[in-house]
């Protein structure tokens, strides 16, 4: 097996901003005193005249982003997921979502892999919050390559988008052959007994889970679902029809995220068992990111267990 290269999606986010800046002269970037952490610092260094630090005022930043977008600018507004989706929720809803302004929210440090900072900064509710805003696109890339592709794609989007990135360096899964399309899931592995639909850093865990299952003679399909809204219902329902059992995997609350979206889709059109792997309606805690992921069940082993549970349910 080739050596695993690891890179945080936030790093790819910062690099992408710089890469896109030359092509899009109207691109401006906002941050709220977290440039070094969100990696917008890369853009600040390269294009200081197009970078605006709003200071520690996320609500104001979202409004400024709305005003810039209403004036024809391509805007990325960046902060941690907790503050982008949580603290500034109503600003995102009313100043960006309601007028459907093409503001791109670059939310980093999503999920419990924030690590040592602990529960106050480990946002596991952002997808649920953003999903409820009409017209909001939500993209949670699995790796650095998909981040770069998604960043390029959202530049053409005429509406608000919530981009969800992580702090932790995660395995690079894709290469240059990746064909990213907003609203389209990608089948990574064929399988007939169960489908694992994963997003973000859980995609590499899903791939590992499929290998564990393969060793036990279970054929698991793996789908990478970077776009959580609008959900690729076609690929979900095809999986429901062909494998009759689904497991979802996300670094987010089991309430209202990818698991919720998949369950809603399946329940209404083609009911089959859907078992959700995610943060089980609890707050996070301090600790090393990799240990936390294991502690909260965000692991290949847990996905494999849940896959067997889903298969058992469909057969009972």
């Amino acid at each position: 097996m080739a050596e695993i290269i690891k890179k945080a999606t936030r790093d790819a986010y910062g690099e992408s901003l710089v890469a896109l800046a030359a092509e899009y002269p109207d691109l401006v970037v906002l941050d709220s005193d977290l440039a070094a952490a969100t990696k917008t610092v890369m853009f600040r260094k390269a294009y200081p005249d197009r970078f605006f630090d709003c200071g520690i005022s996320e609500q104001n930043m979202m409004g400024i982003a709305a005003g810039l977008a209403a004036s024809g600018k391509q805007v990325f507004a960046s902060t941690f997921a907790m503050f982008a989706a949580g603290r500034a929720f109503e600003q995102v809803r009313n100043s960006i979502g309601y007028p459907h302004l093409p503001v791109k929210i670059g939310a980093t440090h999503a999920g419990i892999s924030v690590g040592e900072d602990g529960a106050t900064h480990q946002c596991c509710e952002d997808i649920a919050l953003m999903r409820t805003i009409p017209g909001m696109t939500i993209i949670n890339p699995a790796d650095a390559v998909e981040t770069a592709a998604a960043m390029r794609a959202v530049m053409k989007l005429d509406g608000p988008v919530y981009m969800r990135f992580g702090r932790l360096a995660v395995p690079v899964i894709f290469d240059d052959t990746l064909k990213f399309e907003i609203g389209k899931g990608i089948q990574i592995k064929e399988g007939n007994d169960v489908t694992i639909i994963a997003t973000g850093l859980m995609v590499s865990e899903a791939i590992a889970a499929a290998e564990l299952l393969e060793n036990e003679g279970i054929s698991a399909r793996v789908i990478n679902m970077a776009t959580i809204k609008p959900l690729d219902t076609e690929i979900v329902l095809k999986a429901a029809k062909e494998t009759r059992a689904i497991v979802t995997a996300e670094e987010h609350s089991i309430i209202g995220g990818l698991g919720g979206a998949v369950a809603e889709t399946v329940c209404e059109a083609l009911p089959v068992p859907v078992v959700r792997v995610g943060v089980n309606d609890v707050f996070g805690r301090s600790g090393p990111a990799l240990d936390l992921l294991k502690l909260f069940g965000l692991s290949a082993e847990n996905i494999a267990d849940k896959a067997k549970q889903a298969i058992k349910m469909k057969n009972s």
Partner: protein
Amino acid sequence: MDATTKKQLLITATKIRMAVIEGTYNAKSGHPGGSLSIADTLAVLYFLHMRTDPANPGWQDRDRLVLSKGHTAPALYGALALSGFFPVEEIPTLRHIDSHLQGHPDMKGTPGVDMSTGSLGQGISAAVGMALAAKLDGSDRRVFAILGDGELEEGQVWEATMFAAHKKLDNLCLIIDNNHLQIDGTVEEVNSPYPIPEKFVAFGFNVITIDGHDLDQIESALTAAAGYKGKPTAIIQKSVKGKGVSFMENQVGWHGTAPNKEQYEQAMQELKAQLAKYEEA
């Protein structure tokens, strides 16, 4: 300003007030009090001061107005309709289910509305973003934001204010409608924002205090703001909530209540009398 201009603006401001009463009466809801207190300011802005083109509401180099106190949309709709952004005949459809005149301003639905507002404290940030965009474009277009005095209780206002001064956005002009009243009582009773001028001075603004019902003072303040370089301006206008309708003036209860038929008729009678007086002058 010359006598002819002043006469026209007095007539326009009265017609905006009539639109407020017409709209809220037909909607059986809405916010007449704070709409009436900004009618004179809107008349000067849209009919004398601002650079707009009703035939081309999306014109990139137009001046922009963000009604941060979005609940006073009836006055904005009056000013926009009288300017020609949409027919005056649509005013009575305010808040109706098939109307594009929403309870609070909707930039996607109503020509001339520059920002969707209504949740207090948010419009000012969007106005700051628009002022920043104008600077980036090297454009001389200006951005106006009208805020309530009660709205100053929102923390976001001060986040936006701090940023605007820090970035020296002298193309931004805030107008604080100091009518003293908010839903639960006087601003002093509820959670006093006073002293207002000192706060804006401390936050790095050029501050001008005026009588919000004196057209000459409004225009000279706007002109002074346009000429002031290096700082954004805050015009603090002392105003009367419900101005122009005797029984609504300075009454907390007329914040968010529509007139009934009898009240509507009395209000329109008073405004028509004012209109006749201005037209005859």
